[in-house]
């Protein structure tokens, strides 16, 4: 890049948390994603958390309409999008009001002054329209007021764009400025704009101009005397890409289907925050992927069952309310003993709850939520990358054990992103469907004759001699014919439960995430709390405490090593974004006096919250 840089102080930082916030129409998500991309490309470790309103276009300028994008990047390993931010970029008064509590004491605010006019102040609810940028209430912070709108318009003078279109380039001015502030060059952002606007020369030119104007502004303005630099992180060597949790889930499912040599059928009904899995899979039809946007959640899962019956890998995904609707069909899939993957991208509940916020409150629904005794394996992903691994494992279990499998992720990791050193396809294990081609009992075919793992065969329609009838009604052992025999029913309930319990035989030995193999405190987590717990556990260890962290991927059945492990620590702490669902399962299963740390605010834990709770428990 040929932009001259004046001499200004450069401060080095190990890690920085920056939060971009503005109206949902301000292009905040794009700005955040672009800056993330640039840092990842530079070699930083990154973690992101977009936070958007439930409404597509909530009234402009209001608190309800604030969209945010938080990025944590560093020269060290990063596990979470960060607790509090170092830099808060706000496009209007509402964005400041909604997010000031997330800024560290003494942190930096970059505010677009145009978003603090009388109207914006009133809409944001500032009493008497008092302007926080000028009334001294922000004295504890480093405040930079920048008239982004005016400077963007100036930069675009002479173009034929209308005022509205010019103002849409504001986010590029901000991106240019932030790139300057963190000593990044513009090459990556320029490349991105060329790809996005390549054919629309005028828009490309305008966005590039705004981007450069932002950068120059940082360089020339007297108010900014300091730039920051975050050096590359010691990341393992290799080729990386960025991946969100929902992308990871989609790719994990697809990779699993490929490794099982099955077509993937994905039946789903649009729901936040699961829809991106449908969007991603529908782009990959050249892999034999069939996506079916069903008329409702019930049809979504029922169509997937039909596809599995026909010999494809049936998959459905939703969030809590949709999963509730699928419940009856999950019982059918359990009864039929067909492969099926059910993904629940959890969100705040109950009922419609908090559609765009995160929660882990569907664990009991997954483990217990069916009529009759219908145990279905439940596994959970802990990070965006882990979504890939666990989706792949969900396919493995479903296909090799002839059972529906529930995969739990949540809105936090589904939308969050991190760098992924993606695997080579040859390093992924093959998956072996339990297909049967001929009779399995002398001359006869028994659809419910089980193998040594208690798994029944998968007999696809179209094969002569294997005609059989299956259904949700209780069936006779081995033959699958309708049976109301009392003793047979008890036998079948136990056989089906045993089959699912024996899935634990395939799990690798339980492994601590960090910490001593025995000691004072074990923190047990599951799902998206991973980063916050790991950060807290490492800090506690550095302070000399005997603290270990185990993160559960298998929630039903549990890993066989979990019971013995729990007994090796004096205390057990279970942080969850619910009222204590895993804690109760652990207590019931292992008679362990597990203590809970429970946050039910639709927002993830900060590592500080877990740190404090652990210290309290250690002192007790």
């Amino acid at each position, binding site marked *: 890049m040929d932009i001259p840089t004046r001499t200004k102080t450069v401060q080095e930082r190990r890690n920085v948390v920056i939060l971009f916030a503005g109206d949902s129409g301000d292009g905040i998500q794009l700005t955040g994603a672009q800056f993330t991309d640039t840092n990842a490309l530079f070699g930083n470790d990154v973690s992101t958390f977009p936070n958007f309103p439930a409404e597509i276009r909530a009234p402009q300028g209001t608190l309800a309409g604030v969209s945010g994008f938080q990025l944590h990047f560093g020269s060290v390993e990063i596990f979470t999008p960060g607790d509090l931010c170092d830099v808060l970029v706000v496009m209007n008064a509402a964005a400041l009001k909604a997010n000031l509590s997330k800024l560290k004491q003494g942190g930096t605010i970059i505010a677009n002054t145009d978003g603090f006019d009388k109207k914006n102040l009133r809409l944001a609810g500032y009493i008497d329209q008092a302007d926080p940028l000028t009334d001294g209430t922000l004295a504890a912070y480093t405040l930079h007021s920048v008239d982004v709108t005016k400077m963007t318009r100036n930069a675009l003078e002479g173009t034929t764009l209308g005022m509205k279109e010019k103002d849409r380039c504001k986010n590029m001015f901000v991106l240019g400025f932030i790139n300057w502030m963190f000593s990044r060059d513009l090459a990556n952002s320029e490349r991105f704009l060329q790809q996005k606007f390549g054919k629309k020369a005028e828009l490309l030119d305008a966005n590039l101009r705004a981007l450069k104007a932002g950068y120059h502004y940082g360089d020339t303005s007297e108010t900014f005397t300091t730039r920051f630099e975050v050096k590359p992180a010691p*990341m393992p*060597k*290799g*080729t*990386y*890409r960025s991946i969100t949790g929902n992308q990871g889930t989609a*790719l994990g499912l*697809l*990779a699993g289907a490929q490794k099982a040599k099955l*077509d993937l*059928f994905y*039946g789903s009904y649009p729901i936040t925050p699961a829809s991106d899995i449908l969007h991603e899979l529908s782009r*990959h*039809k*050249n*892999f*034999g*992927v*069939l996506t*079916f946007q*069903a*008329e409702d959640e*019930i*049809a*979504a899962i*029922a*169509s997937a*069952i*039909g*596809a*599995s019956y*026909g*010999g*494809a890998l049936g998959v459905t995904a939703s969030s809590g309310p949709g999963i509730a609707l699928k419940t*009856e*069909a999950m*019982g*059918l899939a359990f009864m*039929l003993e067909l492969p099926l993957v059910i993904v629940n991208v959890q969100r705040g509940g109950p009922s419609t709850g908090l559609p765009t916020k995160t929660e882990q409150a569907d664990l009991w629904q997954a483990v217990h939520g069916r009529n009759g005794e219908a145990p279905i394996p439940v596994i959970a992903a802990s990070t965006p990358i882990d979504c890939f691994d666990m989706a792949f494992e969900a396919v493995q279990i479903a296909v090799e054990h002839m059972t529906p499998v529930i995969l739990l992720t949540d809105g936090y990791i589904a939308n969050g992103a991190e760098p992924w050193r*993606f695997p*080579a*396809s040859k390093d992924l294990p093959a998956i072996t469907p339990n297909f049967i081609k001929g009779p399995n009992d002398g*001359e*006869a*075919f028994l659809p419910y004759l089980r193998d040594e793992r208690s798994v029944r065969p998968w007999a696809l*329609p*179209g*094969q*002569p*001699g*294997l*005609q*059989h*009838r*299956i*259904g949700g009604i209780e069936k*006779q052992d081995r*033959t*699958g*014919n309708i049976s109301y025999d009392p003793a047979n029913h008890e036998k079948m309930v136990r056989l089906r439960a045993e089959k699912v319990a024996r899935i634990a035989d395939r799990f690798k030995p339980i492994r601590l995430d960090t910490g001593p193999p025995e000691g004072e405190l074990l923190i047990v987590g599951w799902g998206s709390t991973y980063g916050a717990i790991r950060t807290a556990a490492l800090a506690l260890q550095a302070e000399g405490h005997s603290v270990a962290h185990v993160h559960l991927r298998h929630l039903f059945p549990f890993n066989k090593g979990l019971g013995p492990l729990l007994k090796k620590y004096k205390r057990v702490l279970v942080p969850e974004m619910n009222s204590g669902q895993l804690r109760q399962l652990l207590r019931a299963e292992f008679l362990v006096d597990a203590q809970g740390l429970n946050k039910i605010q639709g927002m993830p834990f900060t590592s500080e919250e877990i740190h404090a709770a652990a210290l309290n428990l250690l002192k007790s």
Partner: protein
Amino acid sequence: MSTTNGTTTASVKVDFSSDQEVRWCPGCGDYSILKQVQTLLEQSGKKKEEVVFISGIGCSSRFPYYLDTYGLHSIHGRAPAIVSGLRSVRPDLSVWMITGDGDALSIGGNHIIHLLRRNVDVNVLLFNNQIYGLTKGQYSPTSPEGAVTRSTPMGSTDHPFNPLALVKGADGTFIARSMDRDPKHMREVLARADAHRGTSLVEIYQNCNVFNDGAFETFTEKATKPIHSLFVEHGKPLVYANGTKGICLKDMRPRVIDIGPEFSANDCWVHDERDAFKASLLVRLFDDPRMEGGFPRPFGVFYVNERATHEAKMTAQVKAARERKGEGDLDALLKGEHTWTIV
């Protein structure tokens, strides 16, 4: 010997009946339908292994157990969705769906309309007996207003569905009606349904002799059938009552005419099963037979429309994607569009 779950696969002659004991009430109209389906399958030359029956819940939905084919007895109302998924991945099979008035039009009402609009290739046999039989006698969405049943001792307050008008409204591509008491007609209609590519829906009037005996007897019994039932055939005039009455179209409205000195069969509406607008009128001939001077109830194939099936369009997209992007390369997919390397 036939095969069923757990018995030998040895088979001498093609016989589509399974060895399971049929458990419908003696005298149930379902027996007649089962017999005609078995006969049709045997005559069609289909192989047993290429036929799949999917059902929901209800008396009719036990049907798959009595056929030596592949079968899935699913959950209440959801058979259309299961069929849609199965069909998407298995265009090679002959798929049949067995449902009833409660299963298809009440709990499964949403699914059936979407199956029809998508035009999934399946033969849907809708057993209509205007009652809930398996749950022992509650009114159904096709029971007439005022029907006195176990759940409506003072008479039903619900207006019933006209099932075929619903099917037409959902753009069904094969619409037909038959009755359990006319096996020959049923077999002919079923054969037509089987030959059609797309969702073929056949409403079959089926007598529940336990909870709703005689619901359709006006249309099915010898004494009243000629006056109250109209059997339509493609290219033939709408004539009934042993040739003494017909239906003509005047100013876009159907009218009953007496064939004799004033009118001849040439004045009647000639049935054209390709005509969507006439089909909309035909399905609307739904007068209560107790009403004086009403229209007769039509039977036969009302409407046939060839449009692409849902699975054909899905498969075409996969093919097109493969032509455009090549067969999926998992490594390229995992790599994505944008990478960087740490050395």
